[in-house]
Structure formats: C-alpha cells, structure tokens
C-alpha cells in the first residue's frame, strides 16, 4: 500500500507540473469568481419579489434560480472538465514508459501491479481535488447567498470523478499497450463524445434497422463501452435532487474499471523494457 501511495504522489506531482492542470484550476477559480460577482451584484431578492407580484401563485423562484446555477456548473464541468482531465492524463503512462525513465522505476522495490494502481490512484486524486475545489466553492456560494444547503449537489464530486476513473482505466490500458498518448486520448474522446451518447440512445439508432443481429450487437456494445453518458445523467440527476432512473451504469462501470486495470497489470507484467 505504501508503494501505491508513493507512486500516486509521484503522479500528482507530475500532473501539477503540467500547464493543463494549472489551467483547469485557473478556469475553476475564474468560474468561482464569476459566481461570486453575480451573487454580489445581481439583486435576486428584488427579482424574486417582482416575479411574485406579476404571478399570483407563489413559486419558489430562488429554488429555480439555484437549479439553473447548478446546471450551469455541472454540465460544462462534466463535458469540459473531463475533456481537460483526459487531455492531461493521457500522457501519464506513455511518459512513464519512456526509455531511461521506466528502467529506473522498475529497478525499484515496487511491483508492477503497485505501479499501475498507484498511477490510477494518483490520476483520480488530482481530478477529484480539482472537481471538489470547484463544486464545494459553488456549493458554499449558493448556500451563503440563498440559504440552500442541499448536499445532493456535492454528490457530483464523486460521480464526475467516477466517470473520469472509468475512462482513465482505459487510458492506462491503451498507454501500456501502445505507449501512445495521442491514441489513448483519441479513443477516450471517441467514447466520451460519440460512442457512449450514441449507445445510450441505441433504441433510436436501432429504429433504422430491422436486423435482430444489429440490435444485439448494439446492446452488447452498450454494456462493454464505458457508459460515460449514463454516468453524466446520473451526476446531473443526483445533483439536482431528481430521481435516478437506474444505477446499473455505476455497477457496470465499476466492473469495467476492475477488469481493465487487471488486464493492464497482466500485460504490463509480461513486458520487457
């Protein structure tokens, strides 16, 4: 365990040396400042009062506004945040495998499975820290401003990080297999932006065909391709306190992570460097 933590620490250190991670923190800070500004200068109380006068029915306007703000954070964070996270994480394994670097690492009293697990843990931790920083800050701002201290919103820290972890496991496997950061990145983006959304809407896709086989293939692919799209919906629903339709994607993704990491370890173990 100590070795895994050492490798994880090393990975975090590497991540911090990257401009992209710094940029991520900077953007988060910018968003937080933006919210602070909006909350400080826009008189929501007056707005609420005005709408209340026009509509006779009293609707909880501040609750609606808060919901909007939350969506305004979650949606870009899931899309843009993970985009940046994948971008910065795709180089971790290929960099580690560089000649002259990997030799030294492998000569240390650390097993190869510990290296893989440490790399995984380190990458996940840095993304977790980043997302937590943004979400907790926004949560605090909303709480102070509107007096709404809804902890549902905080759950998105875990769900978004989990979506990243799923793709990151795959990035590790591809990195070990090909030593190419570009390839890991491209495949992750393909899944995240194209395959997963397509497969989650597979019923609509299947409408265009009568073939049973195609339907089975789509169903099969749905379960083996990381379900990031579904994880995104779960993140949104949980954050907004809505009912989650199915937690199955969480289970499938957990299995996916375990399997992919296991495969990575087996392959890494067999390789000469």
């Amino acid at each position, binding site marked *: 365990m*100590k*070795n895994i933590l*050492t*490798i994880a620490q*090393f990975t975090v*250190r*590497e991540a911090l*040396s990257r401009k992209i991670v710094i940029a991520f923190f900077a953007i988060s800070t910018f968003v937080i400042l933006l919210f602070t500004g909006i909350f400080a200068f826009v008189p929501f109380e007056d707005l609420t009062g005005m709408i209340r006068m026009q509509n006779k029915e009293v609707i909880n306007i501040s609750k609606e506004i808060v919901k909007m703000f939350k969506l305004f954070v979650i949606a870009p964070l899931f899309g843009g945040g993970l985009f940046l996270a994948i971008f910065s994480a795709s180089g971790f394994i290929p*960099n580690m495998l*560089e*000649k*002259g*670097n*990997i*030799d*030294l*690492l*492998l*000569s*240390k*009293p*650390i*097993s190869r499975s510990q290296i893989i697990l440490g790399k995984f843990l380190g990458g996940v931790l840095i993304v977790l820290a980043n997302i937590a920083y943004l979400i907790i800050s926004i949560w605090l701002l909303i709480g102070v401003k509107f007096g709404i201290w809804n902890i549902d919103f905080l759950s998105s820290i875990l769900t978004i990080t989990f979506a990243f972890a799923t793709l990151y496991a795959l990035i590790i496997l591809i990195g070990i297999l090909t030593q190419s950061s570009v390839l890991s990145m491209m495949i992750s983006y393909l899944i995240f932006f194209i395959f997963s959304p397509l497969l989650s809407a597979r019923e609509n896709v299947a409408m265009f065909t009568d073939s049973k086989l195609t339907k089975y293939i789509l169903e099969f692919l749905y379960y083996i391709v990381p379900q990031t799209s579904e994880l995104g919906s779960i993140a949104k629903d949980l954050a907004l306190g809505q009912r989650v339709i199915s937690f199955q994607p969480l289970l499938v993704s957990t299995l996916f992570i375990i399997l992919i990491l296991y495969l990575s370890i087996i392959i890494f173990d*067999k390789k*000469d*460097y």
Partner: protein
Amino acid sequence: MYAIEITNLTKIYKTRALNKGEIKALENVTLNIEKGTIFGLLGPNGAGKTTLVKVLLGIVSATSGSAKLLGENVKNYLVRKNVGYLPENHKFPNYLTGEDVLMYYAKLSGYEISKKSKEIEEYLQLVKMGKWRKTKIKKYSKGMMQRLGLAQAMIHNPEIIFLDEPTDGVDPIGRKEIRDILIELKNKGKTIFINSHLLSEVELVSDKVGMLNEGKLIKLGTVEELTTSKEIFEINISETLPDLVVKELKTKYTFQINNLKISLENANTDKVNKFMDELRKLGVTITSFNQKKESLEDMFIKSLTETKN
C-alpha cells in the same frame, strides 16, 4: 553467499518485425560475483551488457536460467530494496530539481528522506553537484545528469550498485572523481557492477572483468589474468606490405598485421631484430618501434577477432 549469482541465463527478445524474429541477447551466461568487489562487464555495442543488468533488476524477464541478488531470486521485487541502479541514458522527470530527484527516488527505494535530510547535501557534494541542488534538471548538462544519476544510485545506501556506462559524457576530471567514489564504496563493502566499453577505466578499478560478445560470456577473470604478462613488440612501417610478403614472413614468425602496424607476441629481442632485418631487406621503412604490455583493450580486440574467425 555471492552478491550476484547468475546461472545459465538466456534471454531471447521476440521482435514483432517479421524479418527479424528473435534476437538472442544472452546465451547461457553463468557468473558469480563476490560481495565487496567491483566487477566490470565489457563488450561491444549490442553484446547484451545492458540486457544482463536489466534481467538482474527485473526490468526484462529471462527466457531461461536463473539469477539471484544477495541470495534471493530476482523475481522477488523486494530484493531491489538493496540495489542501486544508474541506467544508460537515464531520464528523470525534467520538472524536478536535483534535490527533488534524490528525495523522490530514495522514497521509491523505500528510503524516506526529506529535503532537509543531510544525505541529500552529502551525496550532492560527493558528486560535486552541491550548488545545483535547487536548479531544475531541465537545465543540467549531460555530465551533470550523469553525476546526479550516480548520486541517485547511492543515496539509499544499497548493497549492490549497477552502473551502466557511468562515465558517459563526464569529463576526464569527473571520471577520476567517479573512480574514486567507486573505490570508496567498495571499501565500505559494497558490490559494484559496471557496464562499460571504456576499457582503460574498467581496468583501473575492477577486481574482476568479464567479456560479453553476442550474448556469450567469452572471458572472465582478474585484469591480470586476462591481460597476462605477455610483452608485445609493435613495429610501424611506412607502406603496406604486399600479401605475398606477409605470407612468406608468416611461415617464419607469428605476428599480426593491421595496415601499417605489425605486432609480435611472445618474441624475444633477438627474434624481433631478425624480423626487422628482413623488413629492411625488403626495402620497408620502419617509422617507429615500441615494446609494451598487453592492455585490456588489446585483449578485447584480440578476443573479438578470434571469435569472429
């Protein structure tokens, strides 16, 4: 118990390129190295020196045979707690400073130190890198990287230290300093394994040397044993001898000829004089003559040509 014990070690790299297939990097290598000694492994490029070290460190897995470090099979990753390694062309993450490198890599070896630990100062001073400790290694020169790499290999106080081309890129004064460090380590009871093709250097520090060629250990012994006490007479001439003349001379003398350089072994002064008389009779001008002891380099080149034929 030996520090390093290698038995019938064979390594075949499977390459994916169809035309090549397999590369036999090591073939049946058996070698034992005693504790507290310096061992020098020689061999031309591609002989398998780095591969041998990598097998010992678990970076490459052996195809067959076995290897032990301090009595423990190298497949057990924990044996590497007591091992230091300076890889050839090593790379440290370039965002680290000198002191970061030492701290992190010591930690990876299971040796916890902080930036304030006296070891960092001590080892950086030892390799003459003290004033660079806070500089990003991005800015280091090749020789400086090599010095830092050496400090990294020693900082966790390991029992065995593997150095792959340690003086690569280091200036002559630095080389002398590194040699002194190695001898000091040996005096502390450490075992040192050096890969090199700088024969003259290996000769100066090694207790024992081995020579690897095309994956086979073709020579093994102390420097004295390998170089023997043979005396060589070297005659330099002004123009090449015609093949016919060489053939003729070879019936009477044993010698080697390499362009304008003729070397006679196991000859006495009398014989050498006669040989020179014959050369002069043929109208050959002798440009220089000297008598020397065989060096490791001569042995190296000779045994390589021997195995080629």
